[in-house]
């Protein structure tokens, strides 16, 4: 799956979780969104793992610096 496709599906996750409208763009990071605290982080990871049917390995999510890198990680985990 390409990054753009992943981002489109991430937009659906965001729309279900964030109360405000948050656009799923590659350069987005947690610091840009008021609602995105560490509680939200846990919730997002759970929702994303369910949506894409993946399981991230230890430390992987933390290493992604923005949504683009996170989307690439999702794509990678969907393949392996």
């Amino acid at each position, binding site marked *: 799956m390409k990054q753009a496709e992943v981002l489109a599906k991430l937009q659906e996750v965001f729309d279900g979780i964030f109360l405000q409208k948050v656009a799923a763009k590659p350069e987005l990071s947690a610091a840009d969104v008021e609602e995105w605290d560490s509680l939200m982080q846990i919730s997002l990871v759970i*929702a994303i793992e369910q949506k894409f049917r993946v399981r991230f390995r230890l*430390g992987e999510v933390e290493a992604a610096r923005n949504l683009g890198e996170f989307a690439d990680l999702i794509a990678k985990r969907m393949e392996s």
Partner: protein
Amino acid sequence: MPDRPIDDAELKSLALSGDAAFWGHLAARSRQAATFSELFFLSTLRKKAKLHASESVRPKLRLALIGGYNLYPLHELVEHLLAIRGFECERFLGDYDNFVSEILDGSSPLYAFKPDLAFILPNANHCRFSGSLLDAVEQQREAAIGAADHLLNLARTFVARSGASVILANLALPGDLDLGSFRSRTLGADWSFRKAVNFELGLRAPAEVQICDVEFLSARRGITAAQDARAWYESKQLGSPDFLVDVAQELSHLIAARKQGPKKVLALDLDHTLWGGVIAEDGVEGIELGDSSPRGEAFKAFQKYLLGLSQRGVLLAVCSKNDHARAIELFEKHPEMVLRLEHFAAFKANWDPKSDNLQRIADELRLGLDSFVFADDNPAEIEIVRQFQPQVEGVLLGPDPAEFIGRLQAGRHFEPRNVTEEDLERTAQYRQERRRTEFAASITDMPAYLASLKMRGTIKEFDPLDVPRISQLIARSNQFNLTTVRRPETDIQGLLKRPGYSCFTMRLEDRFGDSGLISVVIAKVEGDVFVLDTWLMSCRVLKRQVEDEIMNEIFRLANAASCTKVRGIYLPTPKNGIVAGIYEEFGFVRTVDFTARKEFELEVEKYQMRSTKIHITRRAYEAS
């Protein structure tokens, strides 16, 4: 409870539009939430909606969470689940795995926070048997006792230093396959050692330390779903996100239950609830009950469960639309009935609305409707009761008798912190009360009736053996309770030998049976004034002259303490109106008259001892 669960989108729009209906739906959904994602969604909505709502004026609960795990984000979940139960909190989060020094160091921020309650969550992985698998079992058991005592001592130290309450979590068991079947042949394996520690924790915990059974919660969800190695390595979490929800649900339930009065009565429908089918249509022979069919067996099991509740002190009552005589006939004649008429404290089978019958049962038992739970298979009946008697908790049993016990338990209304002798006797006592009432109806002259009861009273200073019952009465009495001061059991222990205090109880028995310990008085000697801090009485013994004997004893003790006057305090609540005028009835004069506090005084020498029909066999601070 709102009649149907509402979906996420509807709830979100209610929250964002500031609709007041949001809060009821939020509470109902939150109580049932079992996954992190759902609870997180609900918690976020609450925060958004709260921006519209006015700030509550209730005092906040000062809650400290400390332990061997990261308590973030557990605290957010707990805070949300307490908020939907009406408790806002001010919280303190201990540093990760720093709870031992936080407790032992009297100058730590934990104490500076001045908590009302602390939750201690020890790290299960730190609790290991340090010896060898081959060590003698006795040695391993000693080590488990030592580990349990270590945790209990920390909890005790915290209580002694802070004066706050404490809830101590026990240990989740590991789901490792390690050691295989050998793990059950030793207490040295992590699995069996922690199990042993948990047993010792529960059995050795003093009354002031309440245990949060994390082992049970993890078993209930399933250990492999509860544990989460990634969450531990990444952020030192206790378990999987969903398991945090289980612990938060349990903790907030335990905390809320400490603050709310317990439920005392379970009112039950009959048809499709205690048996399958309808008496009026199927007849006594046609109903489904007993071991001959799977459904009949489930109804019988439900009755057995209810019998167990009644033996534990929950009062059962029938509240059913039925023909009275036929309902009675079924209880008397059906061979598979587990519950018999004697197990019910009240029996209303007629064609009046159930909300009216519930009121009648409450009047008969002299208990408030807020101590009632009503269980019915029919959603319409639950809804009617919810509308007309909103204080009553409804439990919808639904269409499947296999689920009845689980659905009733899910409300968590009847979980005792302590079981006292009185609990075990309670239904019998209410039955005696019914016989007394019937007997009274046959005698028109009140003094003659009282004399014929042959009452005997025992008055006694606080006794260590009575502490659980005293503490229970202090927690449960609402109506005949002058000040409604609630006291934890530790406070009552502290009053046992405290100089400057006169504390006594009264027991009552008569020809119909023993009513047990039914009144508590706590008085403080302030110079020459005998101040009545607490006076409460079980409403079962109203109009039996117990008040007169209590007042006689108060003045006798005031005199013995060289006091010249007695001061009574009345703090009005929505429930204690029946005692608003009691001091004046005894000749006291009102000296303080605020809306929220009234005080009354009477000189010791002016009090006239009242004569009663109760034979007092013993008085306080006197050998029997």
